[in-house]
């Protein structure tokens, strides 16, 4: 293990906490200490954790707005280019002019929704750096309980304040259990 450990870079220090409340308060400590590359892992989204971590509201919503805008524009072009220029069709006695705009609304609405949904779906996974098949945290066996009932706090080695011993002592100090150093796998 030591030989294997020596040739691997440390990836992060992980500590387990007993409950959502404990994890919440630990996150406040880590935030106040000034760490930047760290995360808390929980089996469900914890209400208010963004504040405890010093993260703002997700900015995904702004991206989705532009997705929806693109959808709306696509629908306008998709409907008006054929209906006005390529092959004007006069059905139900309705010419293509300003007064017949409402009949074009349903498709504009649907494509706005459709493009927003695609942006939301792909946006969340791009922002989350997903999909990925493997991750160094998966090598730490107790971490499998994070999708069941366990709470973990991880401080990554890339953080400027990270030090192998100092960070471990800090996490123990704020109540972390089973503080462990995890190595990069390659």
């Amino acid at each position, binding site marked *: 293990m030591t030989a294997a450990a020596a040739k691997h870079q440390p990836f992060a220090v992980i500590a387990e906490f007993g409950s959502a409340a404990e994890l919440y308060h630990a996150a406040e400590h880590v935030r106040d200490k000034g760490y930047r590359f760290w995360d808390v892992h929980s089996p*469900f989204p914890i209400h208010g954790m963004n504040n405890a971590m010093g993260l703002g509201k997700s900015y995904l919503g702004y991206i989705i707005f532009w997705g929806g805008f693109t959808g709306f524009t696509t629908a306008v072009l998709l409907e008006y280019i054929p209906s006005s220029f390529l092959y004007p069709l006069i059905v139900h006695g309705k010419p293509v002019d300003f007064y017949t705009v409402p009949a074009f609304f349903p498709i504009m609405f649907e494509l706005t929704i459709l493009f927003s949904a695609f942006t939301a779906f792909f946006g969340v996974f791009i922002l989350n750096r997903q999909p990925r098949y493997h991750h160094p945290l998966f090598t730490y066996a107790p971490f499998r309980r994070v999708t069941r009932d366990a709470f973990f706090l991880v401080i990554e080695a890339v953080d400027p304040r990270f030090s192998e011993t100092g960070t471990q002592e800090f996490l123990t100090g704020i109540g972390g259990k089973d503080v462990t150093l995890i190595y990069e796998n390659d």
Partner: protein
Amino acid sequence: MAETQVSAPNMVPFEERMPRPPLVENNRSMAWITDVIAGIPEAKTPLWWYITIAITGSIGAFGVFCIFYLLFTGVGVWGNNIPVGWAFGITNFVFWIGIGHAGTLISAILHLCRQKWRTAINRSSEAMTLFAVMCAAIFPGIHVGRVWMAWFLAPVPVPNWIWPNFRSPLMWDVFAVSTYFTVSVLFWFLGLVPDLGTMRDRAKSKVGKVAYTILALGWRGGNRQWRHWEMAYLVLAGISTPLVLSVHSTVSFDFATSILPAWHTTIFPPYFVAGAIFGGFAMVLTLLIPARSIYKLHDVITWNHIDVMCKIILLTGSMVGYAYVMEFFVAYYGANPYERFAFLNRYFGPMWWGGWCMFTCNVVVPQLFWVRAFRRNLITVYFVAMCVNAGMWFERFSIFVIALHRDFLPSSWGMYYPTWVDIWTFVGTIGIFVTLFLLFIRFLPMIAMSEVRTVLPEADPHYHPPQPISATGSEGITGAHA
């Protein structure tokens, strides 16, 4: 002074006087929830599952045979003819699309309204939505007559460079239903990712591990992931809300924009949407009550959940009842003899049984749910749900077929008789629907575990365990920051 003393007992907070019933009963822990729900797909396939899927799969396969028989022979194998040019195909299409609406209502509208009880039922209802929309999408596809020309529905120039008419309600329907299906899939899968992470972390077999690892997309439950995930979930709920209201409205435009008596009414969009939610909740109960009993999920899908769904059925059932009566009144008050005749014909014409089945099953029977004892009895709940399932099918039958078989001129009157292909194609889609649902509960967690965990008391970051527990040694959990 005396007055404040008198009112002092009333100062007790509302939550203490009338505590909310717990959403998960018997103080179940996160571990229990995970083990029970994830344990369903992990356990050995039970015998009943093989037997059931053999039956439903055979029925579904026969439905597929009927579809191929139709495609190779022509629409003449159906009972449709002038004047009833739209019959079982459109009835089944609207019936299935409507079923789907309850799933989206539960996942989207109830999420925005912070109705936390939805967490126990949203996953399976969303799956139900997908399967119902798949069944629905079959019918317009095979009703076009020459199915190899179904691509004319796509927004591309057909031969002769004629583009589709974007102002046609049928074209709106294509966009609405395909958008609805796509958004429902994305929403469902987004919610599924954290639970697939659970399945991955618990998987024992090699194949299961690889499959769930790929599907979980590397989910680690980090708050930096949850943060965007919650926003995406919220936005999808927000855009699905107008979407679900629009889909059945658009379906109703297929009829409302025509000039036929009994179709040409402005009440159709809200009436269709209420009916869709009504029929969808009945189907949710139809599927979940057996699943709950078989898998002993009584602590997660509690009596309170069933009770609330029954109340929604009562509400929406009364709304469609109001619509039935109101369109009857408007036909009388509108003084259009054709409109009056169409509505009298619905209840007193040669297909009177269709109209009365609809009215009895959809309006009269759900009134049982005014009584609490009937909302908390599986037999009555299941009876009403089955009545509503049948009633909503007859509603569409009444609207479409009964309106069509009496044309404007008596010389053009006709009757409609379904053929065995009509009937078995519909029964076949029920087989396909149940088969897909059985596959779903076999391979995927049928309850959103990550969401049910959030409704437990200990999910609150400011929760402190009750006094006896902290006195026996777990003080360290909250003691430092209490």
